[in-house]
């Protein structure tokens, strides 16, 4: 609470200097810019390694996958499933537009045609777009600080509207972040008519490799009853030297 108050006050003061007229309710453009950049870069790194658990809940089944993920730049991703036993060793390698799946049961590597890369990932509510974020909030949206009818204490609310013409389905996104460190708490996705379509909750802030991030991401589609996907970081390293062997078909085939 203390932190919240302090930082809110700091923002307040800062704004007072910058834009005396509007300062009473809004931080500066520059300031919002910083907040947005912070959100953008929360999980982003030149390279990363993480161990994650993913809970997928649908009206028909619930399951938890455990996996190791390596990323390098925007182009390269390697995912290896370690649990449950049935899927242990299943791997996905993506380099740019090419994607392969390795299936230990059949001991085959299958090249996934681009048309199949767009559907939901492993039956989760995430689609490819969510996993490989092509867009940044800073460059691809116009944004503005807003005050919702019932603001939560210590929270900042930013409304993002996609720049015209970009391939983004949302009409707007409202992100609430902690005023003290700009760590997001919730992202609400709306369609063009202002209907809430999905909610992403950020929970359980932990420090991994010196970086403070919410370790649990909870995605709840609003239009489909009973669906939910939860991502849990168990372990994460950022900007590490991954080496050349990881993003190879040979690695994909070697079910480690």
């Amino acid at each position, binding site marked *: 609470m203390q932190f919240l108050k302090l930082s809110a006050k700091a923002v307040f003061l800062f704004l007072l200097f910058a834009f005396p007229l509007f300062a009473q309710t809004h931080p500066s453009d520059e300031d919002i810019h910083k907040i947005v950049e912070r959100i953008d870069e929360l999980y982003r790194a030149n390279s990363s390694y993480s161990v994650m658990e993913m809970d997928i809940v649908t009206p028909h*089944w619930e399951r938890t996958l455990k996996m190791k993920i390596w990323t390098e730049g925007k182009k390269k991703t390697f995912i290896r499933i370690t649990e449950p036993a049935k899927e242990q060793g*299943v791997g996905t390698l993506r380099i740019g537009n090419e994607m392969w799946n390795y299936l230990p049961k*059949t001991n085959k590597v299958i090249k996934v045609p681009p048309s199949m890369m767009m559907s939901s990932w492993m039956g989760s509510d995430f689609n490819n777009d969510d996993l490989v974020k092509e867009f940044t909030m800073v460059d691809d949206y116009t944004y503005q600080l807003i005050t919702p009818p019932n603001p939560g204490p210590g929270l900042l609310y930013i409304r993002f509207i996609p720049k015209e013409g970009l391939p983004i389905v949302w009409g707007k996104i409202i992100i609430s972040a902690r005023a003290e460190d700009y760590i997001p708490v919730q992202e609400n996705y709306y369609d063009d008519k202002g209907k809430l379509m999905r909610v992403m909750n950020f929970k359980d802030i932990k420090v991994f490799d010196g970086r403070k991030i919410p370790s649990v991401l909870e995605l709840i589609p609003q239009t489909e009853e009973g669906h939910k996907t939860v991502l849990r970081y168990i372990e994460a390293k950022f900007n590490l030297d991954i080496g050349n062997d990881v993003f190879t078909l040979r690695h994909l085939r070697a079910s480690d």
Partner: protein
Amino acid sequence: MMLKIAFRNIFRQKRRTILTALTMFGGFTLATFSIGWSDGTYNFIINMFTRNQLGHIQIHAKGYLDRPSIYKTINDYRLVGRQLDSLRQVEAWAPRLYSAGLVSVGDKSAGAQIIGIDPEREAATVNFNKKIVQGTYFQEAPAHEAIVGKGLATLLKASPGDTIVVVSQAADGSIANDLYTIIGISESGDDISDRMSFYLNLEDAQDLLALPGKVHEIAVVAYKLNEVPALTREIIKKLDNPNLEVDPWQDFAKSFYQAMKADQQGMWIMLFVIILIVAVGVLNTVLMSVLERRREYGLLKAMGTKPRQIFALVIYEVNILAIASIIIGAGLGSLINYIFSRQGITLPQAFTYGGIEFTKMFTEVTAQSLYIPAITVILAATFISIFPALRAARIEPAKSMRMH
């Protein structure tokens, strides 16, 4: 009394009788044949279409047809099957399991529709075994065999003997994946479905998709196409399961149904014209024969016969002829329709569709092919004879006899 005279008249005036009866009888027989033929054609085309893949009736879980989903399953298809087997109109039924997936041969892969089928039932219901253009058909027992559509085989550069990998999502959310051996390539006559279709033995597919004992669709074929609507109702009653939907082909193949309906309506216009000509022929004959016999009626009148009796005489005569024509015509028409329903009429050009060669078309022996022409002939004869009969009844004896 008048009936007796009418009979006597008919037998005495053989030439007139034969001419009049010939029109009625000939018209009736031809009308019967053309309706039987039209019904036969209609059934033939629908069967060619529905027996190729769809079946006459389909059973699904509620909502499956509208928005297909792997979870909308028929849970106890064997029970449904037993209930279907207990209905005498059901010729065959075939269970099917559907899912979308990724299939891959060598370094080629493509999206496909996974279709799990019961080989024996699928063959009995829609002749799937005849659609294999390369390789062989499934064995009865599941043996990790696969049949791919022709377009899909081209896309994957696959041929019988190749190993094919399938990836999909199973109903429990897990990654469904397995290896199969391609044993055959099928061609259904529909490019779009041949580009997507990947067939597995039902049990293999149930295994792959973690849907043990479940199916998405049951296709039913009836012995007789015209029993389909009644059979549909009967199946609904028999299954008595609000979670299942039973639809006749008219519903799930709507655009085809409408095309057929349009086509059949066109045929009915032609039949109407034929019937009209028959009616005109009957009219013409009766009118002429009454007109030509005015002298005769005048004579009867002069002898003291009452107008009402003369009226009755004319009507009797015409109707006796009409009924006799119909009886003989019905016999001959049905015989012709029966012969052609067995022997068929050879098409000028045989053709192959969905693996089946069509060389002949068949007529159908139906009730409507008899009663429609019968009603037409009777109505035309009675209606037509009323005016001449009235005229004959009102005839002035002296005048009419003078005329000749």
